[in-house]
């Protein structure tokens, strides 16, 4: 059995050599079909899968807050002040960690240098808090995160990425304890983390600073409303807790704050708080909705899934026409094999195995090709649009193996191609096997 299989593999290889053009087109066609589908799959994988350091995405909620005045004056304030975060999210049963960050893009023009006169680089900052490092699973290469005490004392301490540390000090030893100038103000490095890819929008940055430092503007709040401000909140749910449980738990706190506001300011506010699951920020919402159920996720995945299917099927169907023609030309061979005692089942197995070998080669080439394509386009604005980073100063997108590793999607794409290729080969083979052998033998090659 095994030796017969080896002969089929050898024959598949011999066929590849014999008709190089056909084999190249077969492998290339399969590769293009699989690569096209896999590019979409890789994008979806980066958007949705657990990838460093966002390894708890299923449990992370992005809290969007907006205040309105109910007196008819047009006005809307997004975000919360540190006070708002503290009062609304303090001591929640459902939350394992609550982190406030400034996600806006007002403070991009930050230059970093190791010391005055040395090379300056523009960095991408994230103003956040100590809980941020409990929500996202950063790997600390050196040191540790800044603490609550650091924030309370307004310490100028930072966590930086290993990539920035290398850029600043090369191989000059540990970065922790050193001073880094950010817009010429010295910050003490307390921790160095393994860099997160810029495609991980919620967690990536070059430098993580406490939002309490002066430059952050995080302390800004609305003069009419001390709860509204510039912060956005991310909550890591405890295991077993649901989004709805969190929303229900927040409701009494929200009502209490609104009535306090009314009594202290005399203004009636409306406060919308939306708990968005991770995917609502990740995927492009083709069907925008405030319903964040699984059904809504699936609806929004419909278009990428259809495009993936289209990318997969168009080249695959074209290829199957060629495979079918090629099989027609091998009908005589089927006749020869039958004349010397091959049973139909054995011949059909042979056709399946030969085509699987070629499809497998095409599949592997296609998977590798999809890596190369994604890597090649990863710095283009079009690609960054999928991760809402097209307006950010991203000039070098680092990517990790986990982003490409989508075995399920690869298997689905491979099976689709294999089924099409097999059908294209098996139908003429089956038709020829049903005819008298002499007809197959006389079939012109």
């Amino acid at each position: 059995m095994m030796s017969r299989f080896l002969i089929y593999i050898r024959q598949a290889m011999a066929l590849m050599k014999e008709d190089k053009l056909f084999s190249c087109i077969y492998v290339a066609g399969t590769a293009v079909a699989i690569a096209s589908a896999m590019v979409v799959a890789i994008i979806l994988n980066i958007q949705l899968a657990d990838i460093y350091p966002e390894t708890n995405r299923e449990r992370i909620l992005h809290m969007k807050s907006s205040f309105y005045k109910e007196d008819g004056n047009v006005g809307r304030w997004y975000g919360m002040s540190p006070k708002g975060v503290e009062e609304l999210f303090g001591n929640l049963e459902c939350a394992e960690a609550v982190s406030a960050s400034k996600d806006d893009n007002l403070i991009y023009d930050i230059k970093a240098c190791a010391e005055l006169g040395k090379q300056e680089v523009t960095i991408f900052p994230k103003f956040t808090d100590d809980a941020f490092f409990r929500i996202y699973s950063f790997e600390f290469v050196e040191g540790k995160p800044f603490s609550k005490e650091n924030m309370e004392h307004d310490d100028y301490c930072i966590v930086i990425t290993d990539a920035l540390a290398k850029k600043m000090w090369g191989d000059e030893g540990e970065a922790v304890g050193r001073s880094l100038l950010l817009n010429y103000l010295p910050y003490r490095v307390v921790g160095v983390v393994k860099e997160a890819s810029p495609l991980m929008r919620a967690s990536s940055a070059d430098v993580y600073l406490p939002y309490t430092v002066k430059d952050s503007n995080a302390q800004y709040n609305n003069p009419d409303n001390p709860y509204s401000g510039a912060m956005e909140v991310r909550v890591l749910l405890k295991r077993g807790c649901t989004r709805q449980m969190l929303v229900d738990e927040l409701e009494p706190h929200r009502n209490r704050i609104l009535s306090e506001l009314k009594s202290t300011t005399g203004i009636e506010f409306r406060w919308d708080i939306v708990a968005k699951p991770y995917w609502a920020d990740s995927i492009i919402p083709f069907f925008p909705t405030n319903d964040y159920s699984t059904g809504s996720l699936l609806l929004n995945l419909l278009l990428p899934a259809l495009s993936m299917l289209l990318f997969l099927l168009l080249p695959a169907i074209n290829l199957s026409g060629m495979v079918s023609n090629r099989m027609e030309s091998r009908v005589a061979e089927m006749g020869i094999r039958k004349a010397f005692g091959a049973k139909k089942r054995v011949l059909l197995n042979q056709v399946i195995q030969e085509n699987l070998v070629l499809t497998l080669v095409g599949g592997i080439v296609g998977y590798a090709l999809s890596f190369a394509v994604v890597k090649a386009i990863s710095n283009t604005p079009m690609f960054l649009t999928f991760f809402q980073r097209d307006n950010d100063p991203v000039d070098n997108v680092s990517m990790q193996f986990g982003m490409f590793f989508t075995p399920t999607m690869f298997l689905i794409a491979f099976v689709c191609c294999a089924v099409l290729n097999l059908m294209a080969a098996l139908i003429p083979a089956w038709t020829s096997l049903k005819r008298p052998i002499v007809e197959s033998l006389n079939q012109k090659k």
Partner: protein
Amino acid sequence: MIRLTGVNKVYRTEEIETQALENVNIEVQRGEFLSIMGPSGCGKSTLLNIMGLLDVPTSGEIELCGTRIDPGLSDQRLAEFRNRMLGFVFQSFHLISSLNVLDNVQLPLMYRGMGYGERMRRAKEVIERVGLSHRMKHTPVQLSGGQCQRVAIARAIIGNPEIILADEPTGNLDSKMGGEIMALLKQLNEEDGRTIVMVTHNDLQAQQTKRIIKFLDGRQIL
């Protein structure tokens, strides 16, 4: 060894009906070397294909090696029968171009389920017998016509079949190579005692066989 009784073969299309064989009755004894002769289109090859179970008669009975070939015999049984009892040599060789000589020759044994080592040993043995041991790794396109036909003969005899059916085995060869192939077939008949039925146009070659039958318009005339 081979008995055909009242065999008819009719090819039908929408417009015409062609009687390729008409009431053919032939008996071939074990160890015979029989030539079938006749002009083109007289039904010689059709007869050989029916004998070899490569085609089915419209009516009539076939008996091979004492077994009546029932029209309802399963594909599996027919395949086994062809594999064990019959060996074919075709005018246009019908070698598989993507396989080398060794793999072409061992084909019948592969479908018999024989182990790889034994298959290779026997394939090398028969290839040596047909004088091509120096061409084992070559593919058919790298061989001359005579060499291809030797490979085809090696493939036909590797499974030790009782009957060898040769359809104009020298038809595509020059006279020298044709002579060599005839010598090989005679050797197989005389030394191994194999039953050979050969279709040929060539009178000289037919004279070298033990019996000749002649066909005209689908009927046996001699």
